[in-house]
């Protein structure tokens, strides 16, 4: 076996060099996961500022200008800094171990794609301390608010987005190369774990749409600094063009966030049901169809922009259809549990909550797809509630489930089950107190991104803020649980940590050694 990783005992220079120059997929996975958690706490603290200001009508704590910076940064940091890197981190840790590969296919690029990320976010977050303040035009940064009317710091934002995009593209090329070339003998495509499948498909989505995002911000850059008029009506451009380009990226982006989450849940539910996934191949096909459809529904984000009716009808029909493959996935998870032998450890609790709350978000998504009704829902808190049900209860819950599920394999220690369950219940209840009332707020007429609101919305906003603080506290508990497990957890030494766990990652020793599968395993 090659040399082991440097530890603190070797001196801090060697230890820091290990992390800076590492090409080991496990180290890089760990870096991604800690980075994304730091961003999650940062983005969460922005959300706390928002909810504190919205606790009561009137402006109490901050100015509307800063409120807009908070909503924008919350969205950007959560989407690009927390959720996406978290799943890349999981991919780094798990994909080589799941397909029996010694490492990722392109280890040096792997190092690069991680280490440019902290710089991207340093640039983005630094704008908050600059003259003019941070980006204040929403995470969807619609032109011309984000071009002609933006603060000068928008150029830093554009640069930051470019770096994030480069990181994502490199990360996904790496995943594609790994899955296509490094599978162990006998590991055919249709034997790959669902998590690998969902990530393979996600990686293709990323390679396809991140350049579109880069194109959008580059056109902004040209409009702002070089006198072009892509999005400026006064110069012959079109602000609506920006929305088409943005959502051609933006809609696949939401599936980029949720597909790996599907993969995680498809690993965890069979384990704690002690029963194989009900319809493996239909799950693969459903994932692929969702990915394909994500490319052809983008303008349902623009039902109020005044498209011709033919366009509205087409995007409405196409969007409604997504319910079919998504339904297939939900039915599959439930029939996997059917006649299993269920236990409810923390990862399973988070996964079941995922299925319930994601499905709930799917229902509101179906309602939103109906263009005539969407005209009333659009840009209200109903939409905010909808996408937090699918993003938070979807991506974040499944990410949390994944950490609890694989943590024993990563560090060789078992987390405290009681503490895990306490965190789950606080998070679950806090989440619902936060976002369920936002449906009512939206239907009653409260628009999103409002720094202040009329008195008729006061009650539910207060309830929502209380829930948000509760949900925020649950994340501190999560951090505590993870750190406590690493330092004081009960050691685990059997390879198969969970009774019903299947897959190659459960055949290597626990904790997983620094190098695994130097000789490829034989998959039957």
């Amino acid at each position: 076996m090659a040399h082991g990783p440097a530890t603190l005992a070797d001196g801090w220079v060697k230890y820091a060099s290990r992390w800076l120059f590492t090409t080991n997929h496990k180290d890089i996975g760990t870096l991604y996961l800690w980075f994304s958690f730091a961003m999650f706490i940062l983005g969460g603290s922005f959300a706390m500022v928002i909810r504190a200001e919205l606790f009561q009508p009137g402006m109490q704590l901050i100015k509307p200008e800063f409120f807009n910076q908070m909503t924008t940064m919350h969205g950007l940091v959560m989407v690009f800094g927390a959720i996406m890197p978290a799943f890349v981190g999981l991919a780094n840790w798990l994909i080589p171990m799941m397909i029996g590969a010694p490492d990722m296919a392109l280890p040096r690029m792997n190092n690069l794609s991680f280490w440019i990320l902290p710089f991207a976010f340093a640039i983005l977050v630094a704008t908050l301390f600059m003259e003019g303040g941070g980006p204040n035009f929403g995470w969807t940064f619609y032109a011309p608010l984000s071009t002609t009317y933006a603060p000068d710091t928008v150029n830093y934002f554009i640069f930051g987005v470019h770096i994030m995009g480069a990181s994502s593209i490199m990360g996904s090329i790496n995943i594609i190369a790994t899955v296509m070339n490094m599978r162990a003998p006998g590991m055919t495509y249709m034997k790959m774990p669902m998590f690998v499948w969902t990530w393979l498909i996600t990686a293709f989505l990323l390679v396809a749409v991140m350049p579109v995002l880069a194109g959008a911000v580059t056109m902004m850059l040209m409009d702002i600094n070089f006198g072009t008029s892509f999005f400026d009506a006064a110069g012959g451009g079109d602000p609506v063009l920006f929305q088409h380009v943005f959502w051609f990226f933006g809609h696949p982006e939401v599936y980029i966030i949720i597909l790996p989450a599907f993969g995680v849940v498809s690993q965890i539910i069979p384990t704690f049901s002690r029963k194989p996934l009900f319809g493996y191949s239909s799950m693969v096909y459903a994932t692929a169809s969702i990915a394909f459809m994500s490319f052809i529904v983008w303008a349902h984000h623009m039902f109020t922009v005044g498209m011709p009716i033919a366009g509205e009808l087409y995007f409405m029909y196409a969007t409604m259809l997504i319910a079919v493959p998504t339904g297939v996935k939900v039915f599959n998870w439930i029939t996997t549990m059917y006649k299993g032998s269920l236990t409810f450890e923390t990862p399973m609790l988070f996964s079941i909550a995922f299925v319930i709350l994601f499905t709930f978000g799917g229902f509101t998504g179906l309602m939103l797809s109906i263009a005539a009704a969407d005209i009333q829902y659009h840009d209200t808190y109903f939409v905010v509630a909808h996408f937090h049900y699918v993003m938070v209860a979807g991506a974040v819950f499944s990410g949390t489930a994944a950490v609890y599920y694989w943590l024993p394999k990563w560090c060789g220690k078992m987390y405290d089950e009681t503490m895990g369950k306490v965190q789950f219940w606080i998070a679950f209840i806090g989440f619902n107190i936060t976002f369920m009332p936002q449906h009512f707020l939206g239907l009653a007429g409260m628009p999103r991104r409002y720094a202040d609101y009329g008195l008729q919305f006061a009650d539910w906003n207060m309830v929502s803020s209380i829930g948000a603080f509760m949900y925020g506290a649950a994340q501190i508990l999560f951090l505590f649980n993870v750190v406590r497990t690493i330092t004081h957890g009960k050691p685990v030494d059997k390879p198969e940590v969970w009774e019903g766990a299947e897959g190659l990652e459960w055949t290597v020793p626990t904790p997983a050694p620094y190098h695994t599968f130097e000789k490829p395993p034989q998959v039957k």
Partner: protein
Amino acid sequence: MLKKAQALFLRPLGAILALVSAVSSHAESAASQLNMPQGVTEVSQAAYDIHMVMMWICTVIGVAVFGFMFYVMYAHRKSRGAVAENFHENLIVELLWTIVPAIILIVMAIPATTALLKVYDTENADIDIKVTGYQWKWQYEYLGEDVKFMSELRTPQDEIYGREPKGEHYLREVTEPLVLPAGKKVRFLITGNDVIHSWWVPDFGVKRDAVPGLFTSAWAKTEKPGTYVGECTELCGSGHAFMPVVVEVKEQAEYDQWLADKKAAAAEYASTIGKQWTFDELMVQGEEVYNRSCAGCHAVNGEGIPGVFPALKNSVIALGPVVEHLRVVVDGIPGTAMQSFADQLSEVDIAAVIHYERNAWGNDVGDITQPVDVLNYKQAK
């Protein structure tokens, strides 16, 4: 026995009910609204109907799916001695759960299409009104009637920043509402002046983005006079939450009277434009206009927002020649957030605000800008 039950059960229940109704009635009648309003137009009714249908379909499916899931979680748990079976894949089940939802969706597409066709039925309108979104107010222009005015938030900053108690209509009151006649089909031609806004009146079922450089149309027809409040629903900068839409629907006769009054007022204004204003009159008027239309960016104290919006206090423009000052306010500065106020403010208001900017916060140019100067500048172009 019965008395005891009453004491144990009914009294606390009564207290809870009283509490709930107290909580929900402390704001307005809309306080406890949980659902989409049915509204007062054909379009809003259609949106409501399809919303309810979808919600019930989702509820029925949800109860069935989650019900089954909870049954499984109860019945097949290991602690009850459940032993896992090893089946997977079943072509018929999988086909069913693909085809049945698809059929439900196809059926749903029919009413969804009908409802959308109503939204787009903007032909044969009786009245055309151009709605323009500005940062952060709405302009309404009655096409062919020569009536045009701005509608901005009337709630004072002191209420927003908690220095005064909030009024009953907090953030739901404007300087001048849009007035419509009952029973007439009104077509809105919607556009934006600076950034994208979105004009929403929930009770009309009308929400349409106000995009600069693009005109789109929406419509409303209602028989019910009353006041309808809406919002801007597209993020448009720091005043996004502070540009409500208020619409008053009046009976035809009242509407005709209102329109006649508006025209008379416009004519009267035109005749007084030549009046000479005194220094102090202009300062009073200018401060009001400034705080309403300029302070959003340049701040009440004239210091702007560093790095975003320039200060006017001690600025080159405010202390320089008046022609330059007129040029900035009347024409705006292309490519920046400084828009043209030629259409937004009257000559009197522009004169007053320029006068104020040149003589407030320690700026001491001392000159007087008269409405007629503004008129001359506009005509000289």
